[in-house]
């Protein structure tokens, strides 16, 4: 218990408690207020906040691999999408007979004139199987890919570029109708999850609440990891990989472990994301999407988990606002964020906060 409590300073725990209260208690309460109240949180914002929680989860995963281990992945969109597709497949199967064509097959298969389910769609009528796959498929893919990449000591930009190639290849694959994941349109038009109608505001709130819980749990888990000996070795690999090797550690296993964990977390985020957003399609696999994930982490501040949360919230908040208010300006803002953060804020927003509060150099201590 002492070890766990020592993950944060007192202010750190205070901030964490505030965040928890805000996400888990304040949001449902504000949502429950009568609609004419000034503090009422409209229903449409609830899934949006849920979406942000999923993004923040991705940013945490990204921070573990990039911020702490120094490996920039441009393929996290892949793991996110694979988790999302697994959940989407369950949702499609669970609405058999309720589609436009009233068929036992998903609508797009009827449309393509397929007579039976492809083999890889079997088992997805069970929620537990889909949930397992949402974690296992990204995990296994990351493990295999990482095994090859880290074993031949591909690092730096080369690793980034081949992860981007992976993303690009999978995007092309998923865009094909014949691949069996709904092609261009992806999987959409979901009806219910475990018997709960996805259109119900209560279900949406529940999903949001679960996402927030998962996010906070993963945050604590990640804190525990980065402050463990394992986490220390990761940071050491980031700062001087050769020295870590000379000290007798094998970086391969450390990198592989954190890389796989990061992918699994992304899969989890994807699986939570899909029922709230109601669609998963290959656009999630666009290389741009994966790079944007890196920017969430960069904007918040690499190498601090709080930074990842802050970055995901800031960038996506801005995005939601700009794409409504001034859509033509959004790409400029995003581009400027990329450039501005790398040029002027290498430590991200957290770094800025720390710079404004001299004397408090380290927020967290082990």
């Amino acid at each position, binding site marked *: 218990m002492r070890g766990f409590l020592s993950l944060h300073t007192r202010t750190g725990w205070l901030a964490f408690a505030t965040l928890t209260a805000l996400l888990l208690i304040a949001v449902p309460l504000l949502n429950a207020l009568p609609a004419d109240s000034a503090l009422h949180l409209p229903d449409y914002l609830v899934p949006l906040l849920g979406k942000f929680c999923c993004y923040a989860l991705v940013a945490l995963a990204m921070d573990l691999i990039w911020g702490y281990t120094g490996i*920039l992945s441009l393929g996290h969109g892949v793991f996110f999408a694979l988790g999302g597709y697994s959940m989407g497949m369950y949702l499609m199967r669970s609405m058999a007979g309720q589609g436009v064509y009233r068929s036992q097959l998903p609508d797009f298969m009827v449309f393509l004139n397929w007579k039976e389910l492809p083999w890889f769609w079997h088992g997805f009528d069970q929620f537990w199987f889909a949930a397992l796959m949402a974690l296992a498929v990204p995990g296994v893919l990351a493990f295999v*890919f990482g095994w*090859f*990449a880290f*074993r*031949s*000591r*591909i690092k*730096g*930009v*080369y690793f*980034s*570029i*081949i992860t*981007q*190639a*992976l993303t*690009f*290849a999978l995007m*092309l*694959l998923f*865009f*094909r109708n014949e691949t069996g994941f709904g092609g261009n349109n992806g999987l959409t038009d979901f009806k219910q999850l475990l018997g709960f109608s996805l259109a119900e505001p209560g279900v949406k709130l529940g999903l949001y609440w679960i996402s927030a819980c998962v996010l906070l749990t993963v945050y604590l888990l990640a804190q525990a990891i980065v402050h463990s000996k394992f986490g220390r070795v990761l940071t050491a690999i980031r700062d001087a990989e050769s020295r870590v090797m000379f000290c007798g550690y094998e970086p391969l296993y450390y990198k592989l472990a954190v890389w796989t964990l990061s992918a699994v977390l992304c899969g989890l985020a994807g699986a939570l994301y899909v029922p709230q957003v109601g669609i998963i399609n290959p656009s999630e696999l666009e*290389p*741009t999407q994966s*790079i944007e994930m*890196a*920017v969430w982490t*960069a904007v918040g501040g690499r190498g601090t988990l709080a930074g990842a949360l802050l970055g995901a919230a800031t960038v996506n908040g801005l995005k939601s606002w700009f794409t409504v208010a001034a859509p*033509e300006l959004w*790409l*400029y803002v*995003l*581009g*400027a*964020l*990329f*450039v501005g*953060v*790398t*040029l002027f804020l*290498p430590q991200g927003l957290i770094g800025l906060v720390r710079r404004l509060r001299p004397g408090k150099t380290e927020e967290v201590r082990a």
Partner: protein
Amino acid sequence: MCRLLRFLLLACALGSTLPAFAVSFDDTITHLGADPQSLRSAVGELAAANDPRALIFLEALRDGRVSFRDGEVLIKDGDTLKRARDGVAVTGEPGSAPLLNNAVRRGIDSALTRLQLTSPDRAVRLAAATAFADRPVRAAEDSLRAALAAEIDQEVIHALRLALAPIELQSEDRGKRLAAIRTLADEGEPRVIAVLDPIAKGDDAELATAARSAIDAITDRQWFRDQAGNLFYGLSLGSVLLLAALGLAITFGLMGVINMAHGELLMIGAYATYVVQNLFRSYLPGAFDWYLLAALPVAFLAAAAVGWLLERLVLRHLYGRPLETLLATFGLSLMLIQTVRLIFGAQNVEVANPSWLSGGIQVTAQMVLPYNRIATVIFAFAVLAAVWLIFQKTRLGLRVRAVTQNRGMAAAMGIDTRRIDAMTFALGAGVAGLGGVALSQLGNVSPDLGQARIVDSFMVVVLGGVGKLAGAVAGGMGLGIVNKFLEPAMGAVLGKIVLLGFIILFIQKRPQGLFALKGRAVEG
């Protein structure tokens, strides 16, 4: 329309070339009667008359557009009536139609065949012979043989032999059939396999063997043609990749800058071409065909200027921090895309091929080598040669190489390394702009043009190995050709995915690429 053209040709020709044999045609037409006997003998005479008007008249007769009025023979051409003997238009209604029986019709068909096959116009002969090769007609055998004996043009001879062979295959004479099989083996297209197949399965052992080897020969030839086609399209795709990646080979390979905005420099080159094209269209329509030449320097300078700005404003603060460079340049690429989108719109813009790049070389019926693709291959190697010359033979190139090899030492020798950095980057950007000119000639020009290319370009550079132009060439051509050979087997998308998978595996084995730098530079 075709007939009208022939009429016009005829009208032009009347004054000059025709009088020598015009007598016969005119005689026949003047004494033409409307009864079958008279028509039949007239058709026979016309078949022998070497006169383009005979062709027109016979076609009209076959189609029932010939009529007699007041002793004059009229031809209905669309809505107008014309006199058969001189093509002058007349007013009024068509006269009485001639009586055609089957004998006359047969006569007309064979006369038309003979006239077309012996026409002085090579294109008419070729078209007729090709038509017979496509759809062999037994009745035309004699005309075809006569035409083959008189023909001198190789292409027409080829078509005539192809037209004769299927007919001779049905002949009673075994010698003729064997000869026909050999002809088909030498010149046949894949479609004659259907004709040869029954013979190959037939009872006559000698014929069957000959037919089987003919089928093999045709299939082999087709295979080689397919491979040659793949090779050409692979080279063409390879040169596009090379053009796209060459600039990257300079900025990434030599300077180590991960420029994710490289694709947008291609896009700027393509839009510069578009602007130059529009300027030519508005102000110099006479010289429109040459706008592409003017677009080359404009595209180079536009992209180089943008590249220079990027280097000055952003990149030089990020040297030695490749991951940050990657993110920053990606941000820049977003801004560039959005800027172009605001100026030119999000839709594709149309960049026309100049007339000297439209069309192509017809190799076989199935295979055309488009001029714009051929030009791209040549252009890619010209740009490559220019870049090589700049690096090997100019002072700038010498300095760039010096800074690449040892920055500190180069600075100590008095080289302004910052300036060299900026110029190298601008050069790489300019080369990307030239690539954009080529891309504008091959496909759509849209603000997303570069995004689709950037992954490919990096693959080329990574595959080829960083720091060597030869690597970019090997990477680009290798990827292009392998891609085109994979495509027929597994489709474009799967082929590409397999290729990306292959590169990922290849980098595992040889992280330094095909052409690795040797010595101490590897450490840098």
